[in-house]
């Protein structure tokens, strides 16, 4: 993986939020929340990087800052060699076509007033406004079948779908512009366990078929280790650890990662036994 030229390089990304106290007077200095504190990583073509960390550790903020949905206070993002942070709006629009996003809450990420077809077609209409109506419809129907939805449902509204189906609509919307990278911000966290596996498998199949790169964000390791080539562990906006998925899971270096792993039920008897022994040892020490 590392031999390939990275498709996305993030260098020293920093994001801060100014938090105004309630009833603050205009000249009071706001508190500064450092949500992302200098994160750097590379992502190769066709690779999946899992980003794990507790809720509130800055995963979503990092993802949003990378695609310039929110301003960042420093850092560079190279997309195929070009610095996104110095790009003008017009060039950025071209990049937005190549980087798409999938969101955590499947229902909330779909406009309740639009039909599934209209929702999926939106990125296409944004980037190729001259596409004929029939062509748009044809592509939408194809994609719906591809993500495992019946194309007959094209005129249905989001509230008529289940959570898993809504997430499939979100995936279809992300795919319609033929992106190279999809940022998945906790795409399965809000779904039932049985549905989680289906969606993760769908993403893996699509990735293989289309050669996508994925940034896969989750708050627990069990989901991420399944799909990722490499894993980055975030701890309060800092990288606790980054490495090959297998190494991070089976030979974690940072105490934070070990804690995360211990929080996850592992369906692997040998590892499980080792984990219990480790915990006993820790308790004995304490």
């Amino acid at each position, binding site marked *: 993986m590392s031999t390939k030229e990275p498709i996305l390089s993030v260098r020293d990304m920093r994001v801060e939020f100014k938090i105004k106290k309630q009833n603050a007077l205009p000249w009071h200095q706001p508190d500064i929340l450092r949500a992302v504190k200098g994160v750097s990583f590379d992502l190769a073509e066709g690779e999946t990087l899992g980003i794990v960390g507790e809720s509130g550790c800055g995963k979503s903020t990092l993802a949003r800052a990378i695609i310039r*949905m929110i301003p960042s206070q420093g850092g560079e993002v190279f997309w195929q060699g070009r610095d996104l942070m110095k790009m003008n709006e017009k060039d950025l629009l071209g990049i937005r076509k190549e980087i798409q996003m999938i969101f955590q*809450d499947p229902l*909330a990420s779909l*406009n309740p007033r639009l039909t599934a077809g209209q929702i999926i077609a939106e990125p296409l209409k944004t*980037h190729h406004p001259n596409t004929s109506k029939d062509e748009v419809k044809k592509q939408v129907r194809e994609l719906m079948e591809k993500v495992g939805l019946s194309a*007959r449902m094209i005129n249905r509204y989001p509230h008529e779908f289940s959570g898993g189906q809504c997430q499939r609509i979100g995936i279809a919307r992300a795919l319609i512009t033929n992106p190279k990278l999809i940022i998945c911000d906790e795409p399965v966290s809000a779904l039932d366990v049985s549905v989680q596996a289906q969606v993760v498998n769908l993403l893996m199949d699509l990735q293989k078929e289309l050669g996508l790169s994925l940034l896969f964000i989750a708050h627990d390791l069990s989901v991420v280790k399944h799909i990722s080539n490499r894993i980055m562990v975030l701890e309060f906006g800092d990288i606790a650890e980054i490495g090959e998925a297998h190494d991070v899971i089976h030979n974690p270096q940072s105490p934070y990662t070990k804690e995360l792993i211990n929080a996850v039920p592992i369906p692997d008897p040998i590892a499980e036994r080792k984990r219990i022994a480790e915990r006993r040892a820790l308790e004995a020490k304490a």
Partner: protein
Amino acid sequence: MMVDVQKMEQLADNLAAQEEVVGRSLFADARRRFFKNKAAVVSLILLCGVFLFSTFGHMIAVWSNEEIDWGILGQIAELGAPSIENGHYFGADELGRDLFARVVQGTQISLMVGIIGALIAVVVGTLYGAIAGYSGGKVDNVMMRIVDILQSIPYMFVLILLLVVFGRSIFMLFVGIGLISWLDMSRIARGQTLTLKNKEFVEAAIATGVKPITIILRHIVPNLLGVVVVYSTLLVPQMILTESFISFLGLGVQEPNTSWGAMIAEGAGTMQYGTLWQLAFPMFFFIITLFSFFFIGDGLRDALDPKDR
């Protein structure tokens, strides 16, 4: 020619299976709930009646609204009472004109002022509020301070001043009412936009690079529709009331035009001569319409927000 019946049937089945399923929009759900609300449905029927009356009433009328019935002039209290025989269904007014035709005319004008006034307020207010809320930051601040300033002006005073300075006309009335009526709407729209702005479907649109104006028109405004519809059903009677009040003061609609407010004023002025019908009929339509709008607004609010009951 032989047709393979079985194959045709199969084809028909397949076609049926491929047919797209029609989705049930949120509004379809709301409509169903609305029609379960009896008060709202009755109000809707009454309101439709008032509308029909205002559009087709002149066809039933025997007299036109300008004709003077010389036969009863001067004896209105004795001869001008409502009657089927002489064609004055609602009686006659002080000048011997047919009150039925006059009420039709007044209804048209009052409804027009109400609906057009509310429409301006809703369109301007919603767009203004949505733009302010979505833009946020300094733009929002400046836009909403302007609303604050406009709202702090005693508007009845300004409206009366406008009518006195620029002359009394329906157009001036529209300008005056239109100038202030959108302020509340813009506040409501802005508040809603602030919550909508952080929804993930708006983020999704931003992430794909949809233009801000498209996001406002496609993602924000349609989701404001529930609030807007409810508010506008309350705004129409408010507009009608304002117009009536101004006309009651004698500053609004001028002869030969008339409105409910103007007619109620006339009717109230002649009450002591025993011509109560001159007050009763315009009052009846005025009250029916206001109540209908309020009940419909109530029904819509319940229908659009089922959690809030």
